[in-house]
């Protein structure tokens, strides 16, 4: 038996890929990134080795698509060296909790990505480090620091998370 129909890949991993895109990009751009990720995956699917880990493969594609979208966004606005803070996800009801997504948007990009890839997609830190181009130790630190910052933001949601978010 070869690969399962691609439909199975979408139904098994669609939710995780959406969570990852949302954490990295915010709710508005997440849906474009989700679509582009699965279109690229569909195109390449016949060539994917049968023993590949599908979810890690999808997260790698989503990571690249998110970078494409962030770069396009930067070209449209101010030139920046680093990934900008995400746009506020507010205004899309039912898509995560606004205060939490907002707090993720305030994290430095590496922390945001480490939280998304490790905690939401379940990638081991060695894979996260390869995606981010940092050492495994730095990836682990980014993930832990990200979660710590998010907890702090949730304990004082009115001060940390709402400041700086454009409402």
């Amino acid at each position, binding site marked *: *038996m*070869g*690969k*399962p*129909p*691609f*439909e199975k890949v*979408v139904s*098994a991993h*669609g*939710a995780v890929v*959406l*969570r990852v895109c*949302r*954490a990295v990009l915010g709710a508005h751009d997440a*849906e474009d990134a*989700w*679509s582009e990720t*699965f*279109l690229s995956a*569909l*195109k390449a*699917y*016949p060539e994917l080795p*049968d*023993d*590949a*880990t*599908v*979810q*890690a493969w999808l997260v790698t594609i989503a990571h690249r698509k998110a970078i494409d979208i962030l770069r396009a966004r930067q070209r449209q606005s101010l030139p920046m060296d680093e990934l900008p803070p995400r746009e506020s996800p507010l205004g*899309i*009801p*039912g*898509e*995560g*909790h606004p*205060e*939490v*997504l907002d707090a*993720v948007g305030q994290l430095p990009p590496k922390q945001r990505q480490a*939280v998304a890839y*490790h*905690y*939401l*997609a*379940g*990638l*081991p*830190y060695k894979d996260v480090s390869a995606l981010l181009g940092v050492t495994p130790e730095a990836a682990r630190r980014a*993930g832990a620091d990200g*979660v710590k910052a*998010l*907890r702090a933001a*949730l304990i004082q949601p009115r001060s940390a998370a709402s400041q700086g978010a454009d409402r």
Partner: protein
Amino acid sequence: MKDKPMSDNNVPVLPEGLRAGLEEIGAGTLERLHARLAAAAANRHLVDVSYCTVDSPLGPLLLAATERGLVRVAFASEGHDAVLQTLADKLSPRILEDPSPLDSVARQLEEYFAGARRRFDVALDFSLSSGFRLSVLDHLPHIAYGSTESYAQVAQAAGSPRAVRAVGSACASNPLPVVVPCHRVVRSDGSFGGYLGGAEAKRTLLALEAA
């Protein structure tokens, strides 16, 4: 293929408040994204097989099409997941659920089951069949609605009068039942013979066409 993404034994766990906040997905969101993906993928010709499931008097039918035409009709008894896996193995794993390319077939089947249609006007993709089996399938649409032929008659018409058993197996492996009417092939003594959708399904179809 491995479905489990974890290679660490310690599965990462977020604190509860964060987990819910980051993981919740609105009702209908994934369905909406799926529909958008199917449309975009069809637009870019990235889908090799589209499929959907329709209700019928014979139970749920799986309909699958390539860009060339309808390639598979399957009864629930065949196991729709198993049929899709076979399509992935034999044709391509680029398979997405998408009813729009199958709208016309679905409508024609509905009309057929309502007694309002006697022949199907849809493009067919016979790439799952070859050789003598294909000759048999080619002949079947020539058996008129409401009439039947024996396995021996079909063998004759397909050019191999002695291949009566092979006609039986060609009918039993018809990838396009109902649309390509293998149910119109019966035993010489008038009894129904086998049917991949079950004897009851064959009886239902012949009764429908006799009405």
